[in-house]
């Protein structure tokens, strides 16, 4: 007991000093944080642009933004680009709250999101950045399904099919008796929104009894290990897994069976499953922050199409790219699909 009290009394000043130093440390850290962020906009390098660029949004578009941001920062070392992945919808929530300069989306902005931005007084320019082809894949053992029509896809994926369409021969009588196992992205994904809109006629309308995953690699593994499996995701996932999966041709509006490839997605013949990817830039940021303007121009420069390719997407054809550029230059506001 005595030893204990002695020890305590002896170490009391030391402990006091210790806690004081922790306090001092945290206060100085806080002070550092404050000055670092307030000084930044003021510091402006002579030649190049500088400052922060905040990007958030779709995980599908993320690889493009990441590649652009990386190269852009090598060219402009005084800028700091951050890219988040809140999903297309989550990105717009932040964008319309004024928290980000650029919002990535794998689908066009929805009416209610436009209303949200209007309410906050945020004007934006819609810019297409690349094409992606939603690719339908099956197990390589599947030798019956070569080409599917949108109607057949609708028969598989419509909300009415839930619990009733469970065999390939229900989709087409010529298909064998083989259980149909479906895999697809979760409801948060822009790929899901686009697919349901095109196939079921209404965004978000889908049967619920399929294996849904936010990680497309789960869909790859699922289809790979199920002989009657069918799944859909962005073209890049198919390109990386060509040897384990078989892609299905889709009958386009002209009635031709078209297999997804970089060429068919770019020339528009792989419809309706090829979709544009977008980024939305805040008008105010584009006009007042030179670094945001520089970054937007950088994303749209023809040479950087290579970065889009590298990320697994298809560059916009020259005329679409020119259209996107002129839209940005004119400052054309609002939603305006190409």
């Amino acid at each position, binding site marked *: 007991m005595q030893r*204990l009290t002695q*020890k305590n009394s002896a170490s009391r000043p030391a402990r006091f000093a210790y806690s004081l130093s922790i306090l001092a440390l945290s206060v100085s*850290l806080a002070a550092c944080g404050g000055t670092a962020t307030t000084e930044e906009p003021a510091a402006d390098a002579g030649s190049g642009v500088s400052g922060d660029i905040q990007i958030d949004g779709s995980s599908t578009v993320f690889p493009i933004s*990441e590649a652009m941001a990386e190269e852009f920062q090598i060219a402009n070392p005084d800028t700091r*680009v951050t890219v988040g992945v*809140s999903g297309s919808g989550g990105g717009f929530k932040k964008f319309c709250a004024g928290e980000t300069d650029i919002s990535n989306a794998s689908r066009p902005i929805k009416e209610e999101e436009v209303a949200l931005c209007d309410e906050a007084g945020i004007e934006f320019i819609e810019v297409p950045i690349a094409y992606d082809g939603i690719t339908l894949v099956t197990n390589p053992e599947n030798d019956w399904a070569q080409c599917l029509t949108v109607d057949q896809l609708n028969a598989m994926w419509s909300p009415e099919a839930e619990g009733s369409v469970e065999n390939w021969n229900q989709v087409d009588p010529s298909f064998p008796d083989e259980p149909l196992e479906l895999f697809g992205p979760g409801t948060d994904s822009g790929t899901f929104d686009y697919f349901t809109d095109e196939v079921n006629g209404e965004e978000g309308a889908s049967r619920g009894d399929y294996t849904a995953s936010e990680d497309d690699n789960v869909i790859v593994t699922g289809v790979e290990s199920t002989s009657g499996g069918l799944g859909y995701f962005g073209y890049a*996932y198919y390109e990386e897994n060509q040897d384990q999966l078989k892609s299905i041709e889709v009958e386009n509006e002209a009635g031709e069976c078209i297999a997804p490839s970089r060429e068919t997605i770019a020339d528009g013949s792989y419809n309706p499953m090829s979709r544009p990817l977008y980024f939305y830039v805040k008008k105010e940021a584009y006009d007042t922050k030179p670094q945001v303007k520089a970054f937007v121009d950088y994303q749209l420069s023809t040479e950087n199409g290579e970065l889009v390719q590298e990320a697994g997407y298809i560059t916009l054809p020259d005329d679409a790219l020119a259209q996107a550029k002129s839209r940005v230059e004119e400052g054309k506001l609002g939603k305006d699909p190409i």
Partner: protein
Amino acid sequence: MERNISSRPPENAPKAARESNFAVNLNRRYMMDRIFKAAAWGATIISVIILSWLLLTILMDGLGTLNWNFITSFPSRKAERAGIIAALAGTVWLMGLVALFAFPIGVGAGIYLEEFAEDNWFTQFVEINIGNLAGVPSIIYGLLGLAVFVRIMEPITGGRSVLSGSLTISLLILPIVIVATREALRAIPDSLRLAGYALGATRWQVVRSHVLPAALPGILTGMILALSRAIGETASLIAVGAAVFISFLPEGLNSQFTAMPIQIYNWISRPQDEFHYIAASGIIVLMAALLVMNGLAIYLRNRFQQEKL
């Protein structure tokens, strides 16, 4: 049990009748013993096998790409150039701040509830709520953090900053810290407190010089568990707005950040195989950071345990 006792023959019944009720059956009892031992052993071995299988696959996938370059590089679109430094630094900042916030508040609340508060409707209400909060999914905390720390307190936190992130995670682990603190305090025998009071010490003196030092090892164990949960937290940080691609280190409390689980998840969900390998390397770094952190806490705990004696 009740029924057994009542149906037992009265004390004065013949000895033989009483004995007949008690089946020795040693073989069966020893067998039950062995079966239970085997079941417990099986449970242990299953968790060990799963853990070692996990470790083995991670090490096999990740060791090849784990090198100094990986640890000191920023993320990149090219897997061979990508590194984890931004996420590692973000996680270190987060954990430091979380410990700084959650330890005093959580332990303080635990001490109040266990040592000072009277047992009335209010404390019971608080207790029930803390118990419930421990089970709330982390994304809910993320949304709370987004509304409170990122939006309302933006002038202080700087919006989507490492401070907002760590405050959110602190909230998330507070219930765990409070419950662990209370359990640790409850394990201290009352005789210690009574002895203190008998010597004329005030409640504060008893808590500060006797109860708390004795309970500290237990509290630190709770803190280890809480921080281990915090280091793997992803959903709430994404809601708060942690970035994924970031090529600078946090410079202050208001700086933007990312954390290792977010970076790892992003790499895993990429189509390219090379990213899956560096994701495994990231997991190794995350586990190493977790081990270092827990090692530090265990070292502190052992020191306090020795000091106590």
